[in-house]
């Protein structure tokens, strides 16, 4: 029988209702990084804009940082945990293959019974999650959703690799997303390029690392900096422009540009490539946070909201890009 199937119906629009972040307590200086690599504070700052970064301790687990960030986002949004219908966690550094960490996070938050799953889209993960949540709310799959970007990249960093040891860091950022009377999230422009999957990747599988028969190394993250720089700046500038066009927002109407905090040099070059007007405030959270992959966009937004650099109701362009090579961008209304 071809029985008619009723489609889901949700809110006409979705928006972000609140942000929250968690920054690990331990501040790691460039001098400390240079104990393991032949480099200098001056070189690291010139190469990346990073002055200090944060690394998690044993208690600051993926789950603990996520719960702290999400709890703050819930408080800022005025939404109760029991109203949450789905928890989406973007991460590449939860070192358990299964189950998804999202289920334990939902439970600990008090979002009992919520749909919960992890996504692996690396540095694009948070923006992928926002795109998913927007669609889920508009089709009625959930009314309120928490999207979390969380990483403990220090666990996957080769602390003796002078090209990446200073870059990667830890933290969590979260957003509560819910129904809205007006559009609050523009169309997501996203994609991937698997032909360049090797530019940023784990060097070996867990299987190779543990069963290769001695001598195998911990599977660290590796990155080819220069090709990634080229892709991130010039190809991602086009993606950012497409997200603006899709949302019907001009660069002159934009209040803030909040790219993934990959490297200050990438941010600076993107701002140039996009020819953003000076009125657009640009996120530079990386200086004291390092590159936290999926966590970097919500952490940067949280900082800009807290310092008053951006205000509720303003319009921001967010973009995540990284391993995959996966990317996602959208225009959002700040809560």
């Amino acid at each position, binding site marked *: 029988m071809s029985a008619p199937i009723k489609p889901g119906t949700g809110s006409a629009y979705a928006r972000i209702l609140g942000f929250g972040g968690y920054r690990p307590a331990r501040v790691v200086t460039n001098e400390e990084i240079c104990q393991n690599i032949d480099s200098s504070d001056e070189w690291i700052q010139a*190469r990346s804009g990073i002055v200090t970064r944060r690394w998690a301790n044993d208690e600051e687990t993926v789950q603990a940082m996520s719960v702290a960030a999400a709890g703050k986002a819930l408080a800022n949004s005025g939404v109760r945990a029991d109203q949450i219908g789905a928890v989406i966690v973007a991460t590449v550094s939860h070192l358990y293959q299964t189950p998804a960490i999202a289920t334990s996070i939902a439970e600990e938050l008090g979002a009992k019974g919520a749909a919960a799953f992890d996504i692996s889209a690396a540095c694009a993960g948070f923006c992928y999650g926002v795109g998913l949540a927007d669609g889920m709310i508009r089709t009625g799959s959930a009314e309120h959703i928490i999207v979390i970007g969380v990483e403990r990249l220090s666990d996957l960093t080769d602390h003796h690799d002078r090209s990446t040891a200073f870059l990667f860091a830890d933290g969590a950022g979260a957003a509560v997303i819910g129904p809205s009377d007006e559009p609050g999230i523009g169309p997501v422009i996203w994609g991937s390029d698997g032909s360049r999957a090797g530019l940023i990747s784990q060097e070996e599988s867990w299987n190779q690392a543990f069963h290769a028969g001695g001598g195998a190394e911990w599977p660290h993250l590796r990155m080819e900096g220069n090709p990634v720089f*080229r892709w991130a700046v010039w190809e991602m500038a086009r993606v950012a422009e497409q997200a603006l066009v899709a949302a019907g927002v001009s660069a002159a109407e934009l209040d803030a540009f909040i790219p993934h905090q990959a490297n200050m040099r990438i941010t600076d070059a993107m701002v140039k490539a996009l020819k953003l007007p000076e009125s657009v405030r640009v996120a530079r959270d990386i200086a004291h946070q390092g590159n936290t992959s999926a966590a970097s966009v919500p952490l940067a937004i949280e900082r800009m909201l807290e310092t008053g650099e951006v205000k509720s109701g303003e319009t921001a362009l967010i973009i995540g890009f990284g391993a995959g090579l996966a990317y996602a961008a959208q225009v959002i209304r700040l809560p």
Partner: protein
Amino acid sequence: MAYTEQEILSGLAEIVNEIVGVPASEVQPDKSFTDDLDVDSLSMVEVAMAAQDKFGVTIPDEEIKNLKTVGDAVGYIAKSS
């Protein structure tokens, strides 16, 4: 359209000046990008991208690392344009 080596050199000098701030007059064929002109590997990518736009050439990633001196870049662009 083909450019003369002199046109390419002066165009590159403008690009290097704009990206890293060294005076255009210092951008001479025998100068090393990294050792003499303060162009690190990320800035070199920026120089290559600007040169692509300016001269209508393609400079692949694997070619960028072969361009050690200004003269190398002038030669590559002259050959490719």
